[in-house]
Every structure is written in structure tokens, then in C-alpha cells.
């Protein structure tokens, strides 16, 4: 056992003495969490609006003012020529053009046929839908306030809308729990596999293997520092998300830690598994980059909702460990549910970890023989 700790300490020296590695291990996670927490958001704001208003009467002016007053919209241009509507989009600055009909106020009073046209830049589908929805909301509320009778007409249905867990619709609630899945994988799987393969490449692994230490302990001793580091990272990320990004931990911290521990363990065994498959650091980086990071970015629900993907990709995503972790983290952190709601995820992660550990230990022993 004393030998084991000697080895662990040696691993720590390797990591701590390499400034660049330390930076990757401790600095990049912080940068990632801040990026995802602050900069990666799809909230609608600062929508650039142009208005084409041939009527120029009191009503259109009022509506325009109301839109400009909303925090979502900036009315940046008043067009004086309908033919410019097409062109203006090509510069890529304007998101929406509001076109009022002619004689708007007059039509509104007499014929009831006043018309507004909303022409949105549909390039970015969800943004466009949300923008149009918001404007329609503003128009509808104007219409209501302008209506003479205050009583609701018959057959009106008034839905009461409740946004569960995230009433302000903040993007960080969605991205922050997910990014943890990426960071822990990065540190445990990628860095561990590189560290082990480096010893293979430089030949020091041979030296270690002829020592009286059991091979399994050698491997374990390489994982321990990364386990400790990922705990440090987990704590940093959690503190940052609660105190800087204001994403709360709604559920039990214990469940969250348990789940993370299982996931860290799984990531470490993934790293170990990769290291048994490849012989060079370059290959380790490529395999973990292409085989782990890329699928995690794309198919874990970290950025893109899995339920919007075609069935094939949804099946593929089932083998991406981060998918289960991210899903469970969202439930625990944001929804605040108890452990009984994440048993499936916990079970799958535990299963994956067990299989990987068994597989990689087997492979490791085979290589020795």
C-alpha cells in the first residue's frame, strides 16, 4: 500500500509541474462554464426592427412606439420605400420588417380592414418564430386596449401559462448542467488516457511494469490524481454556477454528488479503455477527441435537444454516457426532483462503468501476457 501512495504522489508531481497541463485541467473548465453560462444563450433580445409605414398616423406611431419600448426590440430604421424591404435583409442586420397598410387609422375605424404585415428573416428558425410571436403579442395587447368594449367576447379561452423550473426562460439553466458532462469527460477520460499512453510512448511504462507493483495498482495510481482533480473541478463548477451564473441546485446535493461520482468513475474507465487500445499520445487525443468529445457535444443533449433528432441519432445517443448524465443533472439541478426519478440514468451509468472497467482490465491483462 505504501508503494501505491508513492506512485500516486509521483503522478501528482507530473501534473503539478507541467504548467500547461495544469492550465488545461483547471483553467479550461472555468472558461467553458463561463462561456456556456453567459455567452451561449438563445434568448431573444436586441431584435433589430425596420418599419415601413406609409400611413404615418397616430395609431401606427403608437404601435411603433410600443414596440420600440419593449426590451426585446430596437426600431432602428424607418423605411420610406417599399422596394427597400427586400434589399435591407441582404445586409444581414435587420431581423424583422413591420409593414403597415395604407390609411391605417382610418381603415381601423371604418372598414375594420387595417392590416399589418410582419416580415421576419427566417434564417434562424426558432429566433424568427419567437420574434414574430412576441410582436404578435404586442399587437394583440394593443388591439385589446384599443377595443371599445372592455368585456370579453363569447367563447374566449384564457390560458394561464406556467413556466415550470425556469420562469425567466434563462438559457443557462439548460446549458450549465450539460457542460459538466463535457468537462468531467474531458478531464477524466481524455487526460487520463493521454497520461497513461505517454508512459507507454516514452517507455517508462515498461519500467513500472517490471517493478514489484501489481499492474492494476499502477493503473489505479494514474487515475487517482485525475479523480481528485475532477472533484476539485466539480466543486468549482458548482460554486460558479450557483454564485456567478445563478443557476441553483434545486435538488439534493447528495444525489448530485452520487451521480457525478458514478459519472467520473465511468469517465476514468473510458480513459483507461482508450489507453489500452492505442499506443501513441496522438492517437489517444484523436480517439478521445473524435470518439468521445464530438459525440458528447452533439448527441448528449448538451446543446441540441435529443428529442428533436431523427430516430437513428436518438438510438446512437443512447450509448453516449454523457447523455444520461446530462439528463439526470438537469432533473436534479434544475427540476429539483428526488433520486427516485433518476434511477434509470443512474442504473445505465453504473452498468456502463462496470462493463468498461471489466473490459479494460481484461484488455490490460491480455497485453501483459
Amino acid at each position, binding site marked *: 500500500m505504501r508503494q501505491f501512495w508513492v506512485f500516486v504522489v509521483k503522478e501528482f508531481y507530473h501534473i503539478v509541474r507541467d504548467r500547461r497541463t495544469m492550465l488545461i485541467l483547471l483553467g479550461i473548465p472555468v472558461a467553458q462554464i463561463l462561456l456556456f453560462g453567459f455567452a451561449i444563450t438563445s*434568448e431573444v433580445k436586441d431584435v433589430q426592427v425596420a418599419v415601413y409605414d406609409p400611413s404615418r398616423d397616430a395609431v401606427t406611431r403608437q404601435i411603433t412606439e410600443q414596440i420600440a419600448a419593449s426590451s426585446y426590440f430596437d426600431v432602428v430604421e424607418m423605411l420610406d420605400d417599399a422596394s427597400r424591404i427586400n434589399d435591407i435583409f441582404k445586409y444581414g442586420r435587420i431581423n424583422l420588417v413591420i409593414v403597415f397598410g395604407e390609411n391605417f387609422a382610418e381603415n381601423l375605424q371604418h372598414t*375594420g380592414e387595417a392590416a399589418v404585415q410582419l416580415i421576419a428573416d427566417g434564417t434562424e428558425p426558432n429566433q424568427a418564430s419567437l420574434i414574430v410571436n412576441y410582436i404578435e403579442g404586442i399587437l394583440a395587447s394593443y388591439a385589446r386596449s384599443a*377595443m371599445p368594449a372592455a368585456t370579453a367576447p363569447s367563447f374566449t379561452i384564457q390560458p394561464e401559462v406556467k413556466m415550470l423550473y425556469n420562469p425567466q426562460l434563462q438559457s443557462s439553466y439548460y446549458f450549465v448542467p450539460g457542460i459538466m458532462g463535457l468537462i468531467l469527460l474531458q478531464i477524466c477520460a481524455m487526460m487520463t488516457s493521454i497520461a497513461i499512453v505517454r508512459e507507454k510512448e516514452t517507455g517508462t511504462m515498461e519500467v513500472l511494469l517490471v517493478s514489484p507493483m501489481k499492474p492494476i495498482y499502477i493503473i489505479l495510481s494514474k487515475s487517482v490524481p485525475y479523480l481528485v482533480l475532477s472533484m476539485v473541478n466539480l466543486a468549482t463548477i458548482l460554486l460558479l454556477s450557483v454564485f456567478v451564473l445563478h443557476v441553483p441546485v434545486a435538488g439534493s446535493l447528495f444525489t448530485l454528488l452520487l451521480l457525478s461520482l458514478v459519472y467520473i468513475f465511468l469517465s476514468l474507465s473510458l480513459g483507461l479503455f482508450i489507453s489500452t487500445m492505442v499506443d501513441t499520445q496522438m492517437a489517444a487525443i*484523436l480517439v478521445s477527441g473524435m470518439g468521445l468529445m464530438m459525440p458528447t457535444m452533439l448527441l448528449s443533449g448538451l446543446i441540441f435537444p435529443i428529442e428533436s*433528432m431523427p430516430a437513428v441519432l436518438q438510438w446512437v445517443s443512447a450509448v453516449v454516457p454523457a447523455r444520461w448524465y446530462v439528463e439526470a443533472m438537469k432533473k436534479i439541478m434544475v427540476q429539483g426532483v428526488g433520486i427516485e426519478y433518476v434511477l434509470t440514468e443512474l442504473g445505465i451509468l453504473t452498468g456502463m462503468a462496470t462493463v468498461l472497467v471489466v473490459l479494460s482490465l481484461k484488455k490490460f491483462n491480455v497485453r501483459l501476457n
Partner: protein
Amino acid sequence: MLKFLIEKEFKQLSRDKVIPRLIVMLTLLVMFVFPWAADQEIKNVKLHVVDRDRSSLSERLVQKVVSSGYFRLSGPSASYDGAMPAVERGDADMIMEIPSGFERDLMRGETGRLLLAANAVNGTKGGLATSYMAAIVADYSADLRAENGLPALSSAFKVESSFRFNPRLDYKVFMLPALMVMLMTLLAGFLPALNIVAEKESGTIEQINVTPVPKTLFVLAKLIPYWIIGFVVLSLCIALAALVYGIYPTGSLLTIYLFTTVYIWLVSGMGLVISNYSDTIQQAMFVMFFFIMVFILMSGLFTPVSSMPQWAQAITAINPLKYFMQVMRQVYLKGSGFMELLPQFFALCSFAVVLSVWAVVSYKKSA
């Protein structure tokens, strides 16, 4: 001299075990997996209905909601509290509770009540799903009025909305042109930089340094193959987008190629700068991994730049990917021409110049 050097690069490239496969894999991934995975369209919202009225009007409303295509019934529940566990398990995205007395209220001319509770962990999804639902409900009340011989609600004015450039609001049209930018960045920036660092690491660069080969020529010979690969892959992507997805550039191909030329020059400069500051492949990989992550996330590829906080938007001003993605999307979707893209052109050209100068200066220092 250049001829022999380029010949060497191509020979080495064709024998490399990793790089050609990497190029093919990346291209396939970007063209066939990304567009599907990056679909953020909101559909198949899982809806739990708590119908406590069980009247013909409430049933018709549920039917109308389901037939809209946005929602999929994931199960009925007897009460709101009974439905919550489904949301917590992730089996439902939204609960619609129709209170008892719904039909009675409506028939009496009172306002019908409805409770919509959406899981808003994904804010975009929660927001869009509720607004779809609100539109369906409004439509339903209009139906009811019409059936009962009432005049259409004289909503003060008609609002007509249309979406330009992407009328079907298809995410692939939006993603593909920008994904090509990501691919170009990796192929023309990432790979040659790794290649140069690899020669540094193996020591062969030293052998070249004692020959009369000017450094610029050596670097040029390294870059040219990747420039060619970049253009070939881009053309392939444009062809695939047209053949497989039916997505064509609305603007001119010439504009695309002009900007690509500047962009490839720019990213290879960026790659060189990184390679000048790295001695090992591992270092270069990590530095690039970090920068490319930041650049991609802050480019507007996945989430709009305009949604970012002011400070973040200010940072994106120095992100070359952002400008080229704007160009590709605008040419592809809006048919923007060169004149409309002048600001982007100047931005990209200045980056290209700055990065090349930086690359040359840092290269000399490293010698």
C-alpha cells in the same frame, strides 16, 4: 524548389494513416450527422392532458391540439399533481389542465379557463411550445364562434406574418452553410498547423533549416496542399448540400469562393501562429482545441450572437468565424452580393493580414 517540396507534402499526405481518414470522416460528419443533430426545431412536444371537464368541448380541444402536429399525447392523468411526476421523470414536456366547468363557462358566455404548465428547463422549447398552444387555443375559440353563428372576432386589425428566406423554417438550411465554415477552419487551419509541429517534433525541420530553402517557401509548400483540399472539400460540400438536401446558394458561387479564398488564407495564418508557439503536437492540439471551441461557440453557429450579453458580443468582433459564417449564411439564404458583404470582407481581410504578419514575425523569432 517549391515543386519538390509540394511533391513531398503530397506523398507524405497520401501515406499518412490518420489525416486522409480524418478529412473524410470530418466531412461526412459535418454533412450528414451535424445537420440532423443540430436541429433545434421544436416538434413532438410530449403533452400530458388533465381533462377534468370530460365534455365534448374539452375533448374537441384536445383533438385539435393533437392534430396540429406539434404535440404528442404522452398520457392522460386524473389530476395536475398526478401529472407532475411525468414531467419530473421527463416523460412529459407540458401539462394542459382543463378545469371542470370548462364547457359550462364557455356556453354561458364566460371566459373559459385553461392551465398550461411547460417544462422550461429548455427555455426556447418551453416558450415556443406555449406560444404554439396559445395560437391553437385562439384558433379553437374562433372555430367555436363561427359554429355558433357569431361574427369573427373583430380583432382590431389583421396581422399577417411571413418568414423570408427560409419559409419552412428548416434548421438544415440554416446550419449547413455555417457548418461548412467550421469544416474549412479545421481543414485549412488545424491540420497544416499540426503538420508543421509534427516536423518540429521529429526534427526534420532542422534538416530543412540548414538547406537554402527559404522559410516562407517551406511553409508555403506545407499550406498549398491544404488549400487545395479546402477548396475540393468545399466544392464537394456545396454539391452534397444541393444533391442530398436540395439546398443551393441563392447568391453567387463566385462570392462564396472569393470569401473562401480570403478565409482559407486567414485560418492558415492562424494555424501557423499556433504552430510557432508550440513545440509538441500535444501542446498544439490543446491550444487549438481551446481556441476552436471558443471560436465556434461564439460564432453564432449554434446560438445567435445577438442573444449574448454585450461584453460577449464585443468579444465576437475579433472572431473571424463569425464573419465568414455570416457571409455563408447570407449568400446561401438571402442571396447577398459582394457589395452587401463589404464590412465582412474588410474584417476578414484585416484578420488575414494581421495573422500573416504575426505568423511571419513569430516564425522568425522561433528560429
